[in-house]
């Protein structure tokens, strides 16, 4: 790890899908422990940026480094093992598995028990399973999901599914957590609770958070720094105050809408 440097750096990253430039020349640094927001109108390339960081796509140009390691071309599971996990905008839980299993699946990458241990049920396997289940239960407890531990993920109410996605991502013991619209579809009260929870989680787990969010109230309220994307281009970066006042941002994205949002959300 490079001490003092950014935990995540995007350096002139470009992503082309055929003729379409989903991301062009995107650069930003995220400092360790920071809560960094990524905003922009629909189709601005936010989720594409997440997919690039987590290795779902390899960037056409540019480099992405995490703790000094180049992530380009690594497969997503390698990147997860390196310490970057994520949630998904369109919930992607392991629907047929229980909540506890969902969390344990993400803990799999830290499991030391091999295939032979599992088939032969060695003591090491038993220890490892118990540790995973204990840690999984602790995480479910933290996210307020312990009562649902043995419920299949698909049977969970929507809000709880969102929380389970976060619990699952945390079970991977990340140092950088990417949250893709974690508050989508939640009511203002739920999204407030969730954001407070995320802040305490960030402190307790010494996490760096990268957040995509549509709810301006949420983004402005908790992010320390924000980058704004529009048509795949970064048009602004700064503190919430700076973003709020930036004329380019207002023109591209916020405009009257944020006024309305701020008015109705309070």
């Amino acid at each position, binding site marked *: 790890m490079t001490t003092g440097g950014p935990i995540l750096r995007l350096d002139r990253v470009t992503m082309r899908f055929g003729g379409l430039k989903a991301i062009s020349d995107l650069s930003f640094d995220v400092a360790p422990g920071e809560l960094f927001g990524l905003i922009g109108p629909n189709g601005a390339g936010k989720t594409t940026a997440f997919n690039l960081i*987590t290795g779902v796509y390899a960037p056409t140009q540019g480099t992405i480094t995490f703790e000094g390691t180049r992530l380009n071309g690594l497969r997503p599971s390698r990147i997860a093992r390196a310490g970057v996990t994520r949630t998904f905008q369109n919930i992607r839980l392991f629907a*047929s598995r229980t909540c506890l299993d969902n969390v344990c699946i993400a803990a799999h990458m830290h499991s030391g028990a091999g295939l032979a241990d599992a088939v032969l049920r060695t003591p090491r396997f038993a220890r490892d399973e118990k540790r995973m289940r204990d840690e999984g239960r602790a995480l479910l407890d933290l996210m307020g999901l312990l009562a649902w531990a043995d419920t299949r993920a698909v049977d969970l109410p929507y809000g709880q599914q969102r929380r389970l996605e976060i619990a699952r991502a945390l079970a991977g013991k990340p140092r950088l957590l990417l949250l893709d619209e974690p508050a989508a579809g939640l009511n203002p009260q739920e999204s407030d609770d969730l954001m407070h929870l995320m802040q305490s989680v960030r402190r307790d787990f010494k996490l760096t958070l990268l957040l995509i969010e549509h709810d301006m109230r949420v983004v402005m309220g908790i992010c320390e720094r924000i980058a704004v994307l529009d048509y795949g281009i970064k048009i602004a970066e700064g503190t919430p105050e700076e973003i709020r006042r930036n004329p380019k941002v207002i023109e591209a994205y916020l405009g009257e809408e944020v006024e309305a949002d701020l008015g109705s959300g309070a």
Partner: protein
Amino acid sequence: MRGALGIVATLLVLAGLDFALNRAINPYIFQIVMLCGINVILAVSLNLINGFTGQFSIGHAGFMALGAYGSAMFSLGIGGKWAAGLAAAGLPAPIATGVPLAVALVIGGLVAAIAGYLVGLPSLRLRGDYLAIVTLGFGEIIRVIITNVEWVGASRGLPGIPGWTSFFWVGVGVVGVVALSLNLANSTHGRALFAIRDDEVAAEALGVNTTGYKVLAFVIGSFFAGVAGGLFAHYLSYLNPNTFVFLKSIEVIAMVVLGGLGSVSGSVIAAIVLTVLPEVLRPVKEYRMVIYSLMLIVLMITRPQGLFGYRELRWPFRKAAPGTRT
């Protein structure tokens, strides 16, 4: 220690059953029992690929054929000499034939497993229908090659394979594949397989090496298909490439789907039901397969998730799930 005791106890029970069944039931029923066992191994092993991991493979007959011919060629060459040598050394028949059979089954399994690895590789890129077509092609290629290779009897088939398969060895195969599947299912590796089935993108993003596990499922699944093929070869003493047509693969798929994708006990029971059913229906003669097909249709309409869905058969008196009882 408990594990070792369990294995010894299981082997003793199987040996006892072997002794009893050979004497107690008529040869026709016995043959159905043996075919049930072989089909259970096939269904449970395919369930590892199609049920656990959600890869749609329709080439299971190909793996079975490789195991059958691989083990048969061993027995016709080296294995037969071993058996003769062991018998000459004064060992009782079950041991004199059991040792070479065990080696033949492992060889058959390994031949199939290597093929499973090679077929698993394209599965890194393909999924769903596309993978199904690849495995279909693979199964057909195996069959056509066997039909044309003089060394293994070509289209005439391969006669004279020693009939070493006993109830005991079929039982070992069944218990082996079922125990392995259940232990796998209730482990972090099994969870990784299920995660791939439910959502491959999410599994990969959360650190599951989806490529490795997909190939692993293919390798283990095809190993046991090979073992089943080996048991089959040494039971009938004669192999014909036409046994391993596409329809055989479909038969195994029907068992897995009917049992419930991912459910080990479902695969076991469905394999037994679908093996016994055509025999039970023998009295209705030419309408046999019509009724068989109709029953499949009705079963799938009434229970689209399979007999067992995702669940496993449990003892009713056992605690259902941790936390439900205080």
